[in-house]
């Protein structure tokens, strides 16, 4: 058990803190390394959009900028106060919804993103691996070749483009699904079947986009993995010993090929999150992506910084969770 702690758990935790540190440090430093002076840029952009706000409000914003970018005092003082803010989950007020705090907006929008992202990431992983595994076991069958053609043609399409195509056909042309939003206009969320169906109907197309494009990637990798595992001795002996084919596939082949895919899942979470953000914009789904879109359109830099910081925290925590689940699935890690 000690060995497990030392060789598995501790390195994961170190990696977690390293990623959080690296990401948030990038958020802090990247804007400062640019040739443009961020404050002047943002205040300039903001004054174009922010007509109608009184001078005092603008001053508060500029002050928050200065503090967030830490342009008062030396850079290590600024860096220190940046971290203190993060720990207090305080990113200052949002500008376009002044004076709502950025943290409050994030708490309102993040659950929507997590809902479509987590569901579709998990389903894509599960279905992609199972279908890919079976297709890899029977590579010559006609349905397996058809799946190949489909997956190869779909895989390189960008999330935005694929989402747009689904939107055009299923929402504009055939009107099977709503054009956008998270729930129907004027409907409030209640614990009822009607409300649940409404939410599912609105999240169906964004989820389908993520499910298909992520799933196709897992399908490919799993297929290659299974083609390797299939040739191993234990599979050949099982088959020779008369174990039923479906039992061989599920218990011998899939179980062994799935494990590297769990590690792959941890590495892919950042991409799934980015993808979810892009897809939300296509469907104007009320998650972090749409919030980001508005923040950029209104030059709300406080909000952009807040979204970046919270996204990094969310993604690295999810990666850590997957890493912690892994030993439950792979006994070799537990009893080393």
């Amino acid at each position, binding site marked *: 058990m000690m060995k497990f702690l030392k060789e598995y758990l501790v390195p994961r935790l170190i990696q977690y803190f390293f990623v959080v540190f690296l990401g948030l440090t990038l958020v802090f430093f990247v804007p400062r390394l640019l040739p443009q002076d961020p404050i002047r840029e943002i205040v300039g952009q903001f004054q174009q959009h922010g007509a109608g706000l009184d001078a005092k409000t603008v001053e508060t914003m500029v002050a928050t900028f200065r503090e967030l970018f830490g342009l008062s005092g030396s850079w290590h003082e600024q860096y220190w106060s940046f971290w203190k803010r993060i720990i207090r989950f305080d990113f200052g007020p949002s500008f376009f919804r002044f004076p709502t705090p950025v943290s409050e907006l994030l708490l309102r929008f993040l659950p929507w993103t997590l809902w479509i992202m987590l569901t579709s990431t998990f389903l894509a992983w599960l279905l992609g691996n199972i279908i890919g595994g079976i297709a890899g076991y029977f590579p010559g069958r006609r349905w397996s070749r058809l799946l190949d053609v489909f997956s*190869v043609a779909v895989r390189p399409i960008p999330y935005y483009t694929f989402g747009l195509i689904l939107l055009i056909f299923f929402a504009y042309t055939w009107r099977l699904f709503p054009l956008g939003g998270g729930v129907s206009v004027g409907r409030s969320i209640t614990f009822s079947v009607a409300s649940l169906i409404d939410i599912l109907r609105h999240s169906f197309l964004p989820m389908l986009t993520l499910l298909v494009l992520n799933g196709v990637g897992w399908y490919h990798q799993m297929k290659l993995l299974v083609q390797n595992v299939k040739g191993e001795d234990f599979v050949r002996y099982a088959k020779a010993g008369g174990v039923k084919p479906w039992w061989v596939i599920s218990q011998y082949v899939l179980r062994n090929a799935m494990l590297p895919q769990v590690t792959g899942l941890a590495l892919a979470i950042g991409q799934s999150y980015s993808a979810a*953000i892009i897809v939300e914009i296509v469907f104007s789904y009320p998650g972090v992506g749409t919030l980001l879109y508005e923040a950029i359109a209104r030059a709300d830099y406080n909000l952009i910084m807040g979204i970046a910081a919270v996204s990094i925290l969310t993604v*690295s925590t999810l990666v850590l969770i997957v890493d912690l689940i892994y030993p439950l699935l792979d006994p070799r890690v537990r009893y080393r």
Partner: protein
Amino acid sequence: MFWRNYDYKLTLGVFFLLSLLVLALLSFFSPYDPVKWLQVQRDLPPSWPHILGTNSKGQDVFWEATFAIRNSLIIALIAASVSRIIALVVGFVAGHKGGTVDRMAMSLTDGILVLPLIMMLVLVASIMKGKLELWGLGILLAFFGWPWDARTIRAQVLSLRERDFTKTSILSGKGTLAIVFGEYFPHITPLLFSTVLNNMTWSISSEITLAVLGLNRLEVPTLGTMLYWAIRRQALLLGYWWWVFTPVALTIILLIGLYFVSIGLCESGNLTLSRK
């Protein structure tokens, strides 16, 4: 069964890419300025002489598209070549040196890999809003686009390092650079080309994302900004399908072309490796 599929993919991919290259080159003969508005009658459906119609900005969609492909390809090529340098250096050093250097390089690579990169791109692009030239955008994408490929190259170098010919060269006293260029490079080349193409795919998709968020120089036509204007001007609701479908179709053809060539190269690369 791979070898049966491989031929048609490579051929089809090369065909797609060449056709788009011809389109991109046509932009040099365009009768219109790609940046100016109101050069032709607005919102015309496809017909002669505007074979892909015109948009609400008063531009010919076909000629605008030739510029868009050219610019998107330029961005992707810059991003792919610059990120190749980073990926090669990190991959070779980590794979060849091994040990602590390898572990440090890989935790940095994995660290960047698990970050939601879109947020980093947005962060930079929102400060540089509207000022990013094509090359600036290329370099920005290169800066975040190398980790996957550094990992791939490292894995390959790691396996090459264990082969007999590498050990022979080390024992016969060859320097590190001689081994890297003389022994590793020829084996890495097919893989390297395939990572270039994959990276171009990633760069083109990321460009579209940034454009749709309104973070590019929107007056410069790219596949992303074409789509941005079409969506922004409600081409979907107004039924100007030619305006939306042109960039969508071109993006898909371009990316499928890149992907097919990449798969083809990778598979032919394995073939030569395994024959040796």
